[in-house]
Structures are given as structure tokens and as C-alpha cells.
């Protein structure tokens, strides 16, 4: 479980990214550089193109134009852990097997201990043998989080990973994520400004038709920030203003 050294976690460079579905342009000419080892939160109104952007970065769909590459010049593929907006659990696998899916798919030896440790941290140790259909919505989401963290990859992409969790569970799992993803390059989509400010080194907003990326907002201090961190509250206020401006433009 030792994370790769900060130096080994590549940054992500997004250049001129454009996405169109037929006539509709979702976003156009997006540029963004995420420094290796940084945690970036991506915000934006519903339907603006956040998930689409994340999928392109993950290599799961092709942009209409533009490129995404790693800062170290090596291919991104194979170094990304991706968590989609829906849980995407395999219904025929137990919770534990779902968590260890990566090793299973790569034909590696599954690390049961690590999986059980993660399940414990997300509060599902007792349900390790349950099937997804026996879980509540939030439990499914936590399983998916555990699966993503189990992957132990230098780059982590997460699409609204905590949306189905209550305040307390959410806070706990945010801390877990921050702990395990320290020095990883992470891009996280969230609708919760508080969450964004708590976890991110930088915040980026996607807005408009076609959508463009706002200038990254720096959050001072190191994540995860305590809920009452003054930086946090300050940045949250700033963020809300920025978002409100974008919204009313």
C-alpha cells in the first residue's frame, strides 16, 4: 500500500479538447494542466460536459478534437483508476470480488487483505460477501470507491463519488480518499463546493454553451482540510461567487 513517490505520479495535460455530438458542441478548445500529485476538483452545472471530459481523459471516449497526455510523455493508459457516475458494480460478483476486480481482470493475485481493509474503512467489512443487489444505494457507491482506491494508480479520476452518502459517511470517506490519494494526481467531479474546497489543491469550473474552463482557483493549505479551516470557508465563499457569476452570465 505504499504510494508511488510524488515524482512518479504524472500530471495531465489537456490541449484544445473539443467534443461534439452531431450538431451540438458540448465544449470547445479546453486547455488544462494538472500538475503531478495534485488534487483538482471539477465543478459545473448539470449537463455541461464534466463526465464527458472525464471519460475522454480516462481514454474511454474519443474527443472530436484535441489531446490529453501525461506530463512525463508516457501513455496515460494503464495508469488511471476511473470511477464513473454510476456504480458499475458487476452484479454476479460479491462486494469483495467487485473491489478486487482489477487484479482479477489483470490475472494478478488478488490482495484480499487490502480489499478487506478498504471495505472496513468504507464501513462495509460485514457485507463483503453480499451481492450488489442486496446493497443500498450508498453502499454500492462505497463499494465502487473502495474498488477505485484498491487500484492504487498514480492518476485517479472520480465522477461524483460521494453523491449518495450522508454527511458523516461522506466526511469519513473524503478523509480516506485524501489519505490514500496523497501525492497522486486526482481529478474529481463534484457538485458540493464544500467538498471541492476540502479536498482540492485547485478548483476548476466548466461552464457555458459550448462550455469552457474557468481559471483554476487555488485553495491555500493542504487537503484534507478540517471542516472549520478558515481557508476552506473563505475559498468556498469565493467559489460560490465565481459559480454564481458563471451561472448568471
Amino acid at each position, binding site marked *: 500500500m505504499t504510494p508511488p513517490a510524488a515524482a512518479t505520479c504524472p500530471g495531465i495535460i489537456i490541449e484544445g479538447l473539443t467534443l461534439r455530438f452531431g450538431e451540438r458542441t458540448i465544449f470547445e478548445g479546453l486547455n488544462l494542466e494538472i500538475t503531478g500529485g495534485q488534487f483538482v476538483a471539477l465543478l459545473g452545472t448539470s449537463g455541461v460536459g464534466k463526465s464527458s471530459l472525464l*471519460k475522454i481523459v*480516462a*481514454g*474511454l471516449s474519443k474527443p472530436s478534437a484535441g489531446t490529453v497526455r501525461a506530463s512525463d510523455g508516457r501513455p496515460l*493508459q*494503464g495508469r*488511471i*483508476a*476511473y470511477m*464513473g457516475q*454510476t456504480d*458499475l458494480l*458487476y*452484479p*454476479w460478483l460479491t462486494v469483495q470480488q467487485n473491489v478486487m*476486480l*482489477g487484479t*482479477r*481482470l*489483470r*490475472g494478478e493475485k488478488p490482495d484480499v487483505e487490502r480489499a478487506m481493509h478498504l471495505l472496513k474503512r468504507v464501513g462495509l467489512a460485514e457485507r463483503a460477501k453480499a*451481492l450488489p*443487489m442486496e446493497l443500498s444505494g450508498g453502499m454500492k457507491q462505497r463499494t465502487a470507491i473502495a474498488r477505485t482506491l484498491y*487500484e492504487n494508480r498514480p492518476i485517479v479520476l472520480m465522477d461524483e463519488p460521494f453523491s449518495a452518502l450522508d454527511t458523516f459517511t461522506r466526511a469519513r470517506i473524503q478523509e480516506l480518499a485524501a489519505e490514500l490519494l496523497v501525492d497522486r494526481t486526482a481529478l474529481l467531479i463534484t457538485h458540493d463546493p464544500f467538498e471541492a474546497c476540502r479536498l482540492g489543491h485547485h478548483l476548476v469550473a466548466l461552464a457555458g454553451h459550448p462550455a469552457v474552463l474557468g481559471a483554476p482557483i487555488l485553495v491555500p493549505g493542504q487537503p484534507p482540510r478540517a471542516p472549520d479551516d478558515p481557508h476552506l470557508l473563505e475559498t468556498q465563499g469565493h467559489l460560490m461567487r465565481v459559480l454564481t457569476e458563471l451561472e448568471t452570465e
Partner: protein
Amino acid sequence: MTRQTLGKIFRPIVTLVVLILVWWAITAFTSLPPYMLPSPVTVAQALVAQQQTLVWATATTFSEIILGLAAGTILGMALALAMVFSPILQRWLMPLLLLSQAIPVFALAPLLVLWFGFGMASKVVMAVLVIFFPVTASFFDGLRRVEIGWLDLARTMNASPWAMLRHVRLFAALPAFGSGLRVATAIAPIGAIIGEWVGSSAGLGYVMMNANARIQTDVMFAALTILSVMAIVLWVIVDRVLKRILYWAPDTIAAP
């Protein structure tokens, strides 16, 4: 043994008994001549009288069914997998598979006998030809209609095409495969019978064709009864096994 398991065992038996009663009623109360549809009593007598022949024929046909079903399922799966792996292969294979379904036995028989001789092999090959297609078609359909998210996720996890197939597509296609296998199981007995058309000298199909040619309708129906029971029992077994394998794909029939 719980009441439920008892019910599960008794239900098919009750079904059979009722079917036989209906059959008996048809022969008793309609003017259908016995050489068209003999009464169950006559058939039971033939069953006893021809015991020896029938036991042997049943054993032969049963092994053909099992072999045919096993080989047909394996071939069916292999073909479906091959087509999933290569769209080019699919384009060339599909017409061939369709051909294999459109060619009648009598056209194929000479070639089959030429290649496989008069023994068991040519019969099993014929049975396989009948059985494999529903498996191929359904499995292939299941394999290609997989939740895209599952595939995407596996892709980010560096799954090889093989792992993707083995751990994702295969499971996702199981319900569809089950449908195909159910159809294959239902037609497996007729597959074996058609196989016996090809240079046969044994088996229930042979007994039946023989009896049919000789208008020994009672013997024919005796063989037919055995074949039917075999077909139903086989289907029930496959159905139960499939339901067990598909524990994660719930059946919603109880609440229509």
C-alpha cells in the same frame, strides 16, 4: 425434505400423469383410428413387450443426445466467441452457419456418412448441427449487448481482450446463453433422431422410423413416449441448473 422440494419432485410427475390421461381421453372419445394415435394402454403393452429393444435403443439415443448436446453447446459457444473476437470472422462465418441450418438432412447425409462412417460419429455430428445454432445465436447476441459501462471500467483496469471476455462479457451474456441452451436442450432429442436418419441401425429414432414404416404405431408411440420423457427430464435439469447459475439475474415472473 421440505414440502417445497417434495412439490418440485411431484409436480413433473403429476404433469406427466395428467398428460397421459388427456392422451387416453383423446383415443377413447374420438374416432381417431389406432394406427394414427394408439391408446396409452396399447402403448404400455408395446413398451413391456419390446422392453429389450427399447432399453437398448434408449441407451443409444440417450448417449447421442448427451454427446450431441455437449458437443453442440461447446461448438455453439466457440463459434459465438470467435465471432465476438473478430468482426471479420463474423462476416464470413455467419453465412456458413445459416447454410448449415438451411440444408436438409438427406442432402447432407451422403457427405456425412462419407466423412464419418455409419457409426455413432455421423449421428452425433448431425445432432450437433441441429443443436449448436440456437446456442451460437443467443450467446453471440448476449455477448455483444453488454452494458457499456462494465466494458469501459474493465478497459481502464487494463483488462486484456481475453480477460474482458472471460470476466465481463461471458457473465453478462449468461442470461442470453441460458435462453439459447434451453432451446438447444428442447431440440436435442430431435437432433439425435435426425442423426439416426443418417445411416442408422440403432436408437429410438431407428426404432420409430422402422415401426412407422411398418405401421407398428404402438411401438412407435412407445419409443416416442420414452423420448418425450427423456426430453422433459433433460429440460427440467438444464432449467434448474441455469436458474442456479443465474442467481444474480432475478426472475420477475412471480410479479407480472
